[in-house]
């Protein structure tokens, strides 16, 4: 099953809405709570990244009985140094974004810690494309 959720750049008032919709969907499907939690934590970080850094993007969820694929794709500045971005505490977020309580530099590390597989593809001043795979946990 494939579902697409658009994410608007710069609109922090909507931060978490996609994660909540995805959570509700996965709960109805009966995906175990442990898996849902990992997905929602990772997705929330990615969702906020799209809002804070990109020019707009979308979340794509594909569910099958073995795994949940989460793709978060945006057009935007891209991630210049991926290794650095994966470091806990490193952030390029603007002062404005930090004042809103975001931009602590835990986004990508949190995604890595929660996803079973992670692939990031990014191009300077063009796009960021994050593929996360979550295996369904045993209940």
């Amino acid at each position: 099953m494939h579902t697409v959720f658009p994410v608007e750049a710069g609109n922090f008032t909507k931060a978490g809405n996609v994660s909540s919709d995805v959570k509700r969907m996965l709960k109805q499907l009966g995906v175990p709570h442990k898996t849902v939690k990992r997905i929602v934590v990772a997705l929330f970080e990615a969702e906020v990244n799209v809002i804070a850094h990109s020019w707009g993007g979308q979340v794509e969820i594909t569910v099958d009985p073995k795994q949940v694929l989460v793709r978060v794709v945006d057009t935007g500045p891209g991630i210049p140094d991926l290794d650095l971005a994966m470091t806990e505490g490193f952030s390029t977020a603007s002062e404005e974004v930090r004042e809103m309580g975001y931009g602590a530099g835990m986004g990508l590390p949190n995604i890595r810690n929660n996803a079973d597989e992670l692939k990031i593809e990014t191009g300077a001043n063009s796009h960021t494309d994050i593929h996360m795979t979550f295996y369904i946990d045993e209940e």
Partner: protein
Amino acid sequence: MSTYHHSLAIRERLCHGCTHCMKKCPTAAIRIEKGRAQVDSAKCINCGQCMQACANNAIGVEQSPFEMLFSFKQRVAIVPAVFFSQFEEEITNKQICMALYDIGFTHLYFAEFGIDILDVLGVTEPEDVPKPVISNYCPAVKHLIHTRYPGLVQHLSRLRAPSQLTAILARAEVDLLSGSPEDTGVFLITPCPAKIAELKTEESDGIITGLFDGVLNLDTVYNMVRNSLTKNRRRFAAALEDTILPPMTARACKWSLIAGEKPTDTLRRLAIDEIHQVIDFLEYIEEEDDLTIDFLELKSCAEGCVGGILCTRNKFLAKERLTHLVTQFPETLDDATRARILAHADLLRENVYEQEPETDESIKLDEDLEVAIHKMEKARRIVAALPGIDCGLCGAPTCAELARDIAQSSASIRQCAVLRLKDPKELNTLARIWGEKISTES
């Protein structure tokens, strides 16, 4: 897990199938079928919102027959403080007590006295319950969390309900006095259909079972007390001096009010009332790990138990009287009352915690993930064809719920009144694609 009991019943003769209850139900548990409301007991949390919404008095709460009382020699009433708030000011608390004795009770205890029992015993929340601890005082909220928020179940308080602790003590004391346990009947008076359902659901450790010999609806007892008060006005006025209120502290007395719960070991507390607001909040916090709140008090009824489904008086006036009642109780128990609790400390201590919580999820489309995915895809395609105005004429509360029902084969798209008016032929085609209702009655 044993099947959860269901305390609300539709009186088919009185139901007009008007959809009011269906629209109000916070868990989308009601459908209108053949012009009558039907409740899905797996989804129902017994909050009683449907009962309040019904203009035809077509929803009732089951209760024990009052005559049951008289098969016991010792008849104990466990009364919530809310009961006293139902009367206007000229009827005194002592008169209410006298009327309760007059209608047949031999012993009175406040339900909230259980709070004081925990306090005297020095019992607090087990360390392994993570913060924020969610109060389990409201049985509708407790059941809601068990069925819909598996991630929050471990946050639920594990302290036994105050009324149950009171019942344990009451039974022990009365048995000791009378010397014949089989003659003691303990009855809970409650404004709460969810409480009734909880007490009638057999807990696997069997503690609740047998704790109460019957549960009485607050409105029924209210009527009887009213009657007694009218008949005995003069007699009650003369003998008032001899009547004393059962003991309780001010802290316990306010427990059923909003923001009334004050566990001893918590600093930051948040209280939310009204079930739809509670659900909105739970949706929000379910995945939230960094809440700086120690204790969450969630109550299904607006204004807490004074807004209870079976309460009779305006909830704001009731709240005012209950708030005033609080001032008439002491901050701490006197030594004699403490000694009464301590005399049964071992028995009480054995029962201060509820067993580990279990979940019983009601929102899954199917137990098999592959089938659930298939059903959800189907429901999505169906909802795209529905008008999206949530009129309720089909018998489901929203178009999305109807789509879900069709995907589960428990409804047919033929039920959609809007599509039927628009294009009856197309509706036949759609019904062929998506299937008809498969009757589950056998």
